[in-house]
């Protein structure tokens, strides 16, 4: 029996139907989480340390390659493998796990839309853990409204000239490979947006202020600033004007990753709260003997299990090659992140006064959970996507 089962009682007595290879990935990610991440989680959060040392370990252990095709040095897995890793890492620290998950977000568009040269150049380095990736879509005035982006990319001979600023970019300033979105034809609205790969170090590409955040503090969230930044024409990702499509397809595949991050944070908090409830004595008995606490634990466990089922279902649907995955993907992200928020708040409650202090890890988990309801599309946007899809499906059915 793999050793992680001893650590996370949540997954006792449940069959997730993982393959032998997926179990191996899970076990190794769990080992890294326990041995390398958990001991430094509080410190990296407090000091806002980007976890390069952990990134190195994850790279050497091939974790960055699990969802990259074998032809480019990866292990040829898919979204489920990426989710398994993200979940295990997030059980120890959702912030440190983001160095992995955000890299996935930046890599997916290259896997999906990159040409052979781009894949050879970037995916091999990402699979080896040598380069991190980042995804730059959001701007100060365009979050949920993707079509409102202002950054420009103008073709000048064999080069594109980039001008504009991206905000709140995870892995910002640390990632070598940056997939960014810019307007190539302002007259065409969302269809005038294109995607580009920009390498760190390109003249005219700098980084702005590092955000001082509530949670996920071990990740670097920064502005990407482009001032007359010239990149070769070959760095266009996909076709001119495909940017909006690339962004949406990427989110379809990356949102289960956010769900997995949320799931990991929730599981970590639940484990801590359950263990604590057995150790904390009040009125001569452990607080786990009180029904008030028992019902909280039961609800937390059930919600987590439901979130896991939905997350894995979304990942498996995507990996099966289904085309219309926006709905299930949005559902997983919406549900798991809401569960993470609720479970972590309850975990702090079970810890009582101790839970409110930085002596114990649950307050951090609560802070880390919040972002999963916000990024890669707020949960309000997820509900819009889900509603739009179910209404369309209904309309198709009644035609």
């Amino acid at each position, binding site marked *: 029996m793999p050793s992680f089962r001893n650590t996370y009682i949540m997954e006792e007595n449940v069959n997730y139907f993982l393959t032998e290879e997926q179990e191996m990935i899970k076990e190794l990610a769990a080992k890294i989480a326990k041995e390398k991440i958990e001991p430094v989680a509080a410190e990296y959060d407090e000091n806002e340390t980007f976890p390069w040392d952990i990134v190195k370990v994850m790279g050497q*252990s091939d974790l960055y390659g699990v969802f990259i095709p074998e032809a480019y040095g990866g292990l040829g897995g898919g979204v489920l493998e990426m989710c398994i890793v993200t979940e295990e890492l997030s059980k120890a620290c959702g912030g440190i796990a983001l160095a992995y998950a955000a890299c996935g977000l930046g890599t997916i568009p290259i896997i999906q839309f990159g040409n052979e040269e781009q894949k050879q150049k970037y995916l091999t380095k990402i699979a080896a853990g040598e380069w991190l990736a980042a995804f730059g879509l959001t701007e100060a005035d365009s979050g949920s409204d993707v079509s409102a982006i202002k950054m420009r990319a103008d073709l000048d001979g064999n080069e594109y000239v980039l001008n504009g600023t991206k905000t709140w970019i995870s892995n910002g300033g640390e990632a070598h490979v940056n997939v960014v979105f810019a307007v190539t034809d302002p007259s065409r609205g969302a269809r005038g947006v294109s995607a580009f790969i920009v390498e760190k170090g390109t003249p005219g590409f700098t980084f702005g202020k590092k955000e001082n955040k509530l949670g996920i503090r071990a990740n670097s969230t920064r502005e990407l600033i482009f001032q007359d930044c010239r990149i070769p024409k070959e760095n266009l990702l996909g076709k001119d004007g495909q940017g909006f499509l690339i962004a949406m397809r990427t989110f379809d595949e990356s949102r289960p990753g956010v769900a997995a991050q949320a799931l990991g944070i929730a599981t970590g908090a639940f484990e801590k709260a359950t263990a604590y409830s057995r150790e904390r004595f009040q009125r001569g008995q452990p607080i786990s003997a009180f029904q008030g606490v028992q019902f909280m634990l039961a609800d937390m466990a059930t919600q987590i299990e439901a979130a896991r089922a939905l997350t894995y279902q979304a990942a498996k649907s995507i990996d099966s090659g289904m085309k219309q995955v926006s709905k299930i993907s949005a559902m997983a992200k919406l549900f798991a992140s809401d569960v993470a928020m609720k479970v972590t708040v309850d975990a702090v409650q079970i810890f009582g006064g101790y839970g409110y202090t930085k002596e114990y890890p649950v307050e951090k988990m609560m802070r880390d959970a919040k972002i999963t309801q916000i990024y890669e599309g707020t949960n309000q946007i997820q509900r819009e996507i889900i509603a739009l899809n179910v209404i369309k499906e209904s309309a198709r059915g009644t035609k």
Partner: protein
Amino acid sequence: MKIVVCIKQVPDTTNVRINPETNTLIREGVESIINPFDMYALEEAIRLKEKHGGEVIVMSMGPPQVESSLKDAIALGADQAILLTDRAFAGADTLATSYTLAAGINALNDADLVIMGKQAIDGDTGQVGPGVAENLGVPHITDIRKIEEVTDNYMVCERLLEEGYVRLKVKFPAVITVVKEINEPRLPSLKGKMKAKSATILQWTTKDLDIDVDRLGLTGSPTQVVRIFTPPKPEGGKVYKGETRDMVSELLSDLQANGVAIKKSKGN
């Protein structure tokens, strides 16, 4: 450079107990791991290979279930694994173990360097490294904390002492044992684990070795474990307070009263 790493499979001592009646370790339900000190040996061997080329062969003596630890070693980067396994090897003390491992290493013909951990966390003797060297007839250095220089013919190492260290040069072939200060062992890679899954672990028995069967296992072991026990915790204790002069005389009279200190002779 051909490097042999000798590893021992041991119970994970974080939760090990002793059966008070048989004086043996209770192994049921206890996970088996590679002796942690041997992990440093394996890591150092892999680093030497990465830097200077060559191959890393892991070797262990034990029952067939040790294969899992040898596969773990392959997942970490060892090229080949050999298990010395035979009923005749069972019950070996450090003398018989050293003899058997040396026979295994001899069968490889041309090993340049043998590395192992300074001791195993279950037996804690630290004798097998030097024992293997004696059987092979090659020099050995124990408690290496750093390998400074490696050439085709010799290497320079730092041997940890209680205070400080000593630099030593040793000619190949040689046996060294390492301490935990030497490196930080890596975690396995997924590709390594997959390679390990399909790897074949060579199994060598007495038939595969040029070996004297009377020197093996229980027959070849002069050491017998009479009893294993947990020493009782010291109880009591007394804190002396006040002037040094008073404390010393009080301590002295207590020691004399308990028959520990010799009484003053009349002449003083």
